[in-house]
């Protein structure tokens, strides 16, 4: 019953600190613009004040005629708002119109780990300060992790299978595994892969409090600098990505633009100590090897790696060691785009997918910005500070979760990538 079919990407959308849409994301990444700034909700007492925050996010500007949507958006968590706007872009790109009875042939996979914490905190605050009778049922219903998927399914009348994965950084990739299963067994014709996260001050404070255990949060350096000797941690980010997946057969039949192929993926767990990655990145090494094996290519055919690296002292070293274990000679260039956008956890995999798409289309490698002094424990060409012109056919994306999950995914350039649709949105 499982038909061996290639899975391809046919549509996408994004909300990032650079703005709404793919063109804004592309401009930001290619010019090496830092999206990390002072976030407005931090006060004098906050230890960590910077984040990859989506300033000037105005959903009402996105679709001026869609008043009922934007009005109701305001009571949703930030991450949920981003998700809806990103989903809209992607669904438009593939020409999906709700009410055309195609809704049961679309599945939704949502990757989101901390989006609803904003609403959970709001609810809990009232519970603690004023007691149970003062709490709000409308807020409580936004605390379920699948809220973004639920709202989108209602808005677009999408009634196919629906799942929300919350295991952090690898969820976008494990989401693709689930989507692949649905597509290959014919349960759906398309899958909307959604990634969404929003930021709160409490979240940032909480991650900072974990400082005593592992120095992963940036509060001293001016900005986040992955792979640099000076690095001392990550900065959190937020945003949303939407990607439409279908089988290659379906895409061709329906004249969809094929933006890229999903060539392979691999996963492993460090099983080391929760909250710490294995110092040699043993889980990531296995994940990369499995992805390469599934893609049925040799490691030398990977043209570019989009790293998980986020400025974590231990994490960036672990990833570098893992990469050097897989590529015994010269690894491909390794870009840490989290240097620009911060650590967006459930969205990071989605952003990496978009970055890979854009890089393959425009023959460009995005930079690792804020790169200062080389660190001998990070022996990689990290495309320091400036984008580089290079054609890529196969791109490998890495993800490492905070508790030891590791995932790698390989994308292959589509012959269709001359489509104008990608950037003119």
């Amino acid at each position: 019953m499982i038909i061996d079919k290639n899975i391809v990407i046919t549509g996408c959308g994004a909300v990032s600190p650079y703005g709404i849409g793919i063109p804004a994301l592309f401009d930001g990444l290619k010019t090496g613009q830092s999206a990390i700034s002072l976030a407005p909700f931090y006060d004098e007492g906050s230890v960590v004040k910077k984040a990859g925050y989506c300033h000037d996010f105005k959903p009402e500007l996105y679709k001026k005629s869609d008043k009922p949507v934007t009005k109701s958006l305001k009571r949703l968590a930030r991450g949920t708002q981003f998700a809806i706007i990103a989903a809209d872009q992607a669904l438009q790109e593939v020409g999906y119109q709700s009410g055309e009875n195609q809704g049961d042939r679309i599945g939704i996979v949502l990757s989101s780990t901390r989006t609803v914490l904003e609403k959970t905190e709001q609810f809990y605050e009232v519970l603690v300060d004023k007691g149970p009778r003062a709490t709000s049922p409308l807020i409580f219903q936004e605390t379920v992790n699948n809220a973004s998927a639920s709202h989108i399914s209602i808005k677009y009348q999408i009634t196919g299978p629906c799942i929300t994965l919350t295991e952090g950084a690898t969820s976008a990739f494990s989401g693709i595994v689930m989507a692949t299963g649905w597509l290959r067994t014919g349960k759906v014709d398309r899958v909307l892969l959604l990634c969404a996260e929003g930021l709160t001050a409490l979240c940032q404070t909480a991650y900072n409090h974990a400082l005593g255990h592992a120095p992963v949060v940036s509060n001293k350096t001016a900005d986040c600098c992955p792979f640099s000797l000076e690095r001392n941690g990550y900065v959190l980010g937020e945003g949303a990505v939407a990607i439409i997946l279908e089988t290659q057969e379906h895409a061709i039949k329906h004249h969809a633009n094929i933006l890229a192929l999903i060539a392979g993926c691999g996963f492993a767990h460090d099983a080391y100590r929760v909250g710490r990655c294995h110092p040699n990145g043993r889980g990531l090494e296995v994940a990369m090897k499995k992805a390469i094996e599934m893609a049925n290519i040799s490691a030398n055919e990977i043209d570019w790696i989009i790293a998980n690296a986020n400025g974590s002292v231990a994490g960036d070293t672990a990833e570098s060691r893992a990469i050097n274990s897989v590529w015994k000679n010269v690894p491909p260039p390794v870009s840490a785009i989290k240097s620009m956008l911060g650590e967006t956890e459930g969205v990071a995999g989605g952003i990496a997918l978009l970055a890979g798409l854009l890089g393959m289309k425009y023959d460009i490698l995005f930079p690792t910005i804020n790169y200062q002094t080389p660190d001998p424990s990070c022996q990689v060409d990290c495309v320091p500070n400036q984008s580089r012109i290079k054609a890529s056919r196969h791109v490998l994306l890495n993800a490492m979760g905070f508790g030891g999950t590791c995932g790698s995914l390989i994308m292959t350039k589509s012959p269709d990538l001359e489509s104008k649709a990608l950037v003119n949105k």
Partner: protein
Amino acid sequence: MDNIVITGLGCMTSLGQDKDRVFDSLMNGKNGINYIQSFDVSSYAAKTGGEVNNFERQLNAINLTCPQYERAARLLLTATREAIDDASLILNQQNPFRIALSTGTTLGGLVNGENYYRALHQNDKKIHPNQIISASQYAPNDFVMSELGMQGMSLVTSTACSASSHAIGYALELLQSDLADVVLAGGFEPMSELTFAGFSILRSITQDKIRPFDKNRSGLVLGEGAGMLVLERENEARQRGAHIYALLAGYGSSSDAYHTTAPHKEGLGAARAMRMALNEAQLNLTQIDYINAHGTATLANDLAETRAIKNVFGEQAYHIPISSIKSMIGHTLGAAGAIEAVATVLTIHNNLIPPTINYNTPDPACDLDYVPNQSREIKVQAALSNSFGFGGNNAVLAFAKPDRY
């Protein structure tokens, strides 16, 4: 496509801390609901829940590497260990990279997050980093993976009440696409004031008993616990001489696309998910001998679910025993799909159907056979287990006897 089989089970609920004790209690129609002890219920109108009793005292006997790991992680670890032992699975004889853990939950480790929040607001200096590390959605999984030395995929699904059914459905995909050899699939949910307060303000919690499908039903009662299944491809399970409980024959999933909390009135989404599961299992309507209902005892769910079952099965619906074990253990939210899967698998294995207890007055709008108050001994070749979550997220699992195909 390979047949996927269940070779081990683990379960913790208010009715017992191992699967045999739980199932025996279910078959005897025992009530697991009592006054809540985990937090102060004096400000709430409803005061009961299905807690796992004396759990912490038992846990001190377990050697844990990180004592700050909280209740949820420990529930998950205990059920996982039971399932592994039950399957006679020797972890270090397996390829560690080919063992996956797929769980469903709503809170993850968030009870520690509640404690952290309170500590912050009281300017407590004694915040331990492990409190935050353990508070995430994925920390309990990571804890179990590390504790047991498993190095394959770790997945967490969080779709409210259907979460662990999806987690089990995901296992099907992993095994059939050869991404794993063994999948430990299930779910866990601790009792939490946060969740209790939320369901209270939604007016979903009853002060009465839990009466699924009864005319006088008035809402749900929350429970906690964990359920775990060991899943493998049939050939490999037989090769290692494993005991096989049942087949995981199908998985259906759909969205109501209707409302953020209320189910679709006609249960159309639920019906779609049931059909998808039946279809994948290649089972026709007369081959289902039992349905383990979602049966939360809310006015809305039980009616919608009854309509959904009639939508799918037509006249045949009247010939299928349907029961809700939530009548005995309450609604265990993220763990419900897994705990109810364990019960359904044991139903098939033992040909014993647990009752819907507290059933007194039939509701003309819910006129099917809900196995009222008394368990039943009947040959069960195949069964469905329903889980319908907030936001209209539906998951249905189909199970069958091992010799079915």
